[in-house]
């Protein structure tokens, strides 16, 4: 692998900001969750790259914990999407702007 570490960081930051844009611009709850997924993946890319740079396994172990965290987060948040959809019959975030349960 003859790539400078910088190029890996550039790739990860482009993917991270694409995910951030998805969170900011989309109004569909599911698309916002997909944006969070993209950001977490970019973080995982940096962790694996750092693991290769310093030749330590800790970064890869962190990625495994990141995957466990992501699956827990996704299962809870998709359950909440189903719950919210049952209450208001929509997944548009503009329907949930009134701070009432």
């Amino acid at each position, binding site marked *: 692998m003859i*790539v*400078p570490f910088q190029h890996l960081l550039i790739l990860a930051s482009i993917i991270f900001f694409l995910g951030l844009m998805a969170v900011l*611009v989309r109004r569909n709850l599911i698309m916002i969750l*997909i944006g969070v997924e*993209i950001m977490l993946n970019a973080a995982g890319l940096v962790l694996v790259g750092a693991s290769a740079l310093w030749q330590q396994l800790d970064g890869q*172990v962190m990625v495994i914990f990141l995957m466990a965290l992501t699956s827990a987060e996704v299962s*809870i948040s998709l359950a909440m999407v189903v719950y919210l959809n049952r209450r208001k019959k929509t997944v548009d975030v503009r329907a949930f702007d009134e701070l009432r349960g």
Partner: protein
Amino acid sequence: MATWIFYILGAVAVAATAMAVTRRNPVHSVIYLVNSFFALALIFYLLGAPLVAAWEVIIYAGAIMVLFLFIIMMLKLSPGEEADRQGPGPLQWLPVLLLGGALLGCTLLLLQLDPAGSQELPNWYASPRDFGYALFHEYALAVEIVSFQLLFAAVGAFYVGRSASRKERLGEER
């Protein structure tokens, strides 16, 4: 050779992610995102993490994205029905593109300023055996805590997603 593969895969990952972000139909987004995750998994393999690459395919592309597809199908979100029918227009995209572009530009400038970033990634390969040793010896306690976290997530998802209790159903009928 590996260098060129890295750049091609990086371009594929960025393009697939950009497509996923801009699609109106959530199902199309999820499929593009699976494509992006495959590219990222191959990059992980190039970086000497074969086990993480396999888990990226199995857990992210296999389990999590299929969960998204299940939920989209369960909610019956077809593109014409509801939720983002028009998609965000240019008026929504403009400030987000400006802010995101400014943040990305500043990040890239910071990366340029750092001299340590230009060192090259070495040829390195973490065998699954070493990886398993590190995971279950140095991080054994963390593995236990993560297993608790998954259990709590399962219980929480079951609690939030349970069907409405009898009392609530009576209230809706009234």
